[in-house]
């Protein structure tokens, strides 16, 4: 059957446990159904379809699912990841401080050109806020990463965050494929030109 999509992006959600990653990724809808059976075995990943610039994009979204301590998340988990959401909880200083460790972990194990974004989650809980928006923004600027405050519970910026990350990955891919297309046509030309040279070298070696 013909492919029903234009792009496929693998995304990861990373951050300390309790920052609401599961809600973010896993619930765009607020009232989750509590199935004893499903909650017992747990969720592995989700597939979502979004549309960007008239293109159908499939997102495969993974949660760190219990391997929250950054020391345990290694290369295998990052394999093939094109986008990473770094999530902290604005009511937890610790989860914010750990973002630096997560970034280091990503630099060590993930592909160099993976798109990243920092999400400050639970922004509906301002009364318990420990991390100002400014500090979050500064950290993001420092690493050249986009930043957004989100609330999975109040559905603030959740869709926007995923669209932004997907748009950035798509932009990067489109630029890359443009470059390859150019290189390919150029390469063809070069090949033609190079062919006699090769034989020339062979001759000279002989």
């Amino acid at each position, binding site marked *: *059957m013909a*492919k*029903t*999509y234009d792009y*496929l992006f693998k995304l990861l959600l990373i951050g300390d446990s309790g920052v609401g990653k599961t809600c973010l990724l*896993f*619930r*765009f*809808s607020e*009232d*989750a*159904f509590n*199935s*004893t*059976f*499903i909650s017992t*075995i*747990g*969720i*592995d*990943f*989700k*597939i*979502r*379809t979004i549309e960007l610039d008239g293109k159908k994009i*499939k997102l*495969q979204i993974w949660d760190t*699912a219990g391997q929250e301590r950054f020391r345990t998340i290694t290369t295998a988990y990052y394999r093939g990841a094109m986008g990473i959401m770094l999530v902290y909880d604005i009511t937890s200083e610790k989860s914010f401080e750990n973002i630096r460790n997560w970034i280091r972990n990503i630099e060590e194990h993930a592909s160099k050109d993976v798109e990243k974004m920092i999400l400050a989650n639970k922004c509906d809980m301002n009364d318990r806020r420990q991390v100002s928006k400014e500090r979050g923004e500064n950290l993001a600027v420092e690493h050249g990463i986009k930043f957004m405050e989100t609330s999975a519970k109040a559905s603030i910026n959740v869709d926007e965050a995923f669209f932004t990350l997907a748009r950035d990955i798509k932009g990067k891919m489109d630029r890359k494929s443009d470059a390859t297309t150019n290189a390919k046509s150029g390469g063809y030309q070069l090949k033609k030109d190079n062919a006699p040279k090769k034989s020339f070298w062979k001759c000279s070696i002989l």
Partner: protein
Amino acid sequence: MSEACKSTPTVDCLQENGKNKTNIYCQRCPSLVLSSEQALLTEKEFYLPFMHKKKDKEPFDGETLKDYWVVQDMYTFDNVGFSNTVGTTKYLICADCEIGPIGWHDTNDKKAFYVAVDRVKHG
């Protein structure tokens, strides 16, 4: 819809040329699971735990269902969630409200993903 389907709708009324005539949605929320004409109707007996915990039953009680929509590629789904693997089974759930299992996948058969006709909304 044919007259027969109007009076006594059956599973057969949901398909055309073996494929799903309409979009397939979650029964509980507006989440789109599969777009029209993407899945094939198939008969295969498989036991699925109930989505709702029945008061007078054990939490993991279920039923054997036989009518399923099947797709070959998991990226055919518009929105769906996969549970962790139990034995060789991954259960499918609604990606939005997480109700489930709405279907299943056997990790030994990479080219078959089943959605129970009785556990989704058509049209």
